C-alpha cells in the first residue's frame, strides 16, 4: 500500500511539474473535458429547469408587454446603428486622409453559458461554442454591457472563459473621457477590479468609463470594461488606489458574444456588427 502511495505521489508530482512547465498535456485535458460534457450539461439542468418553470408561469400579458418593450428598444438601437454605420464610414474616410490604417470591424457569434466555476478562487465560465465554431485561444468575450473575459481553453464543443475579475487577469484600458491609459487587474472578487500604478496626480474621477485600449493586441479597442467607483490617495505613496466595477454582469449574463477579428470571421455564421460592414471595400484592411 505504501508502495502504491509512493507511485501515486511521484506520478502526480511529475504531472504537476510537466503541466506547469510545458503545454504537452493540453490535448489530454481537452479529451478529458470533452468527456465531461454530459456531466456539465446535467449540472446546468437545475438552472435550465428553473428558467423553464418561470417561463411556464409567465402570463401572456407580461410576455406581450415584454415583446412591446423589446420592439421599442430594437427600434431605438436600429436607429443608433444606422448612424453608427455612417459615422464609421466617415471616420474611415478621415483616417484615410490622415494616411492612418482603417478601423477593423469585428464580427460576433452568440454563445450561451453552460457552466460556472465551482471554486470561488478561480473565476471562469464555460460556454457552448468550441473548436466546431472556430473559437480560438485568447478570444475576447462580451456580454451586452461590456467585456467579460477571454477564452483560455478550447474543446471540441465548449470552451473555458477566464473572467476579467480573476486574480490572474489584467486588461489594458483607457479612460474614455481623456484617453489616459491604465491596466485593470482582477482581484478575485466579482464586483471589483483595480487599476494598477495610477499616479496620485492622474486625472481620474469617480464615474469615469474605462474602455479597452487595444494595446497588447488581445482585446479589440473601444469596448466598455468598467466604471471607476472609488479613488483613495495615500500620502507617502506614489500611486493612488483606484477601484473600478466591471460593466459586464459577470455573474448574471447567460447570453454572451464571442468576438471574431475580421480575418478569423467565418462569414456564414457570424453577424457583422455594423450594418455596412458587408458593403465596405476590404482591401484597405491592415
Amino acid at each position, binding site marked *: 500500500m505504501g508502495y502504491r502511495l509512493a507511485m501515486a505521489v511521484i506520478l*502526480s508530482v511529475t504531472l504537476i511539474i510537466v503541466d506547469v512547465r510545458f503545454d504537452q498535456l493540453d490535448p489530454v485535458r481537452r479529451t478529458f473535458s470533452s468527456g465531461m460534457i454530459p456531466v456539465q450539461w446535467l449540472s446546468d439542468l437545475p*438552472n435550465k429547469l428553473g428558467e423553464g418553470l418561470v417561463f411556464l408561469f409567465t402570463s401572456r400579458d407580461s410576455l406581450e408587454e415584454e415583446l412591446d418593450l423589446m420592439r421599442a428598444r430594437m427600434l431605438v438601437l436600429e436607429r443608433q446603428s444606422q448612424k453608427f454605420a455612417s459615422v464609421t464610414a466617415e471616420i474611415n474616410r478621415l483616417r484615410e486622409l490622415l494616411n492612418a490604417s482603417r478601423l477593423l470591424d469585428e464580427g460576433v457569434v452568440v454563445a450561451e453559458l453552460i457552466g460556472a466555476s465551482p471554486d*470561488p478562487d478561480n473565476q*471562469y465560465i464555460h460556454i457552448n461554442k468550441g473548436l466546431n465554431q472556430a473559437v480560438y485561444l485568447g478570444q475576447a468575450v462580451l456580454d451586452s454591457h461590456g467585456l467579460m473575459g477571454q477564452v483560455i481553453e478550447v474543446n471540441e464543443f465548449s470552451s473555458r472563459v477566464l473572467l476579467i475579475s480573476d486574480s490572474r487577469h489584467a486588461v489594458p484600458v483607457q479612460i474614455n473621457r481623456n484617453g489616459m491609459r491604465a491596466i485593470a487587474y482582477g482581484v478575485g472578487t466579482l464586483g471589483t477590479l483595480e487599476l494598477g500604478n495610477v499616479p496620485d496626480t492622474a486625472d481620474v474621477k469617480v464615474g469615469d468609463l474605462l474602455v479597452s485600449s487595444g494595446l497588447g493586441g488581445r482585446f479589440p479597442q473601444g469596448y466598455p470594461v468598467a466604471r471607476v467607483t472609488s479613488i483613495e490617495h495615500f500620502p507617502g505613496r506614489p500611486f493612488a488606489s483606484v477601484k473600478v466595477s466591471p460593466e459586464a454582469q459577470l455573474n448574471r449574463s447567460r447570453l454572451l458574444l464571442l468576438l471574431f477579428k475580421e480575418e478569423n470571421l467565418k462569414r456564414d455564421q457570424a453577424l457583422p456588427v455594423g450594418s455596412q460592414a458587408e458593403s465596405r471595400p476590404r482591401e484597405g484592411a491592415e
Partner: protein
Amino acid sequence: MATYFFSWLAVAISFFVAAVLELVSLPDMLVVLRPEWLVLTVIYWLLRHPEKVGIAIGFGTGLAMDVMSGSYFGIHALALSLVCYLVLGMHKRLKMFPVIQQSAVIFFITGIHLMIVYTMRSLLSVADSGLEYLWQALVSAFVWPFVVVLYDRLVFALR
C-alpha cells in the same frame, strides 16, 4: 462477517452523481459551503470495499477533479491519493465508529485534502484564500451521514 454485494455500476452511478453535484452552479453566498462530494464518494467506497477500491481510484478521481476545476494536472490527484492512504490505514477502526465520530474524522480528512489542494495552488499561482476552506470541510462532515445513507440505498437497490 457479512459480505457486501459489490457492483461497479453502483460505483459508476455514485461517481457520476457526485461529479454533477460538484459542478452545479450555486449562488455566490453558498459557493464556500459546497461539500466535497467526490472526496466523500471515494471515502465511502474505500470504507465499503477497501479490497477493490484503492489509491488508484482516488488518483483517477483526483485527475477528473483537476480537469473540472481547471487547476494544474495532478494537484487534486496528489491530495486524494494521500487521503486514500490515510483512510485505508484506519478503515477498520473508522467503520466501527458511531456516525458522529465518523463525521469528525471526515472533517479532518477533507480538511487535509483541501489544505493540500490550496497550499499547492498558492505555491503555483497567486491565489490565496485564508482558512475559508475549513467551512467546506465542516459542511462535508455534516453531509457525510446523508451520503452514507443514500449510497447504502443505492447499493441495496442495485443488489
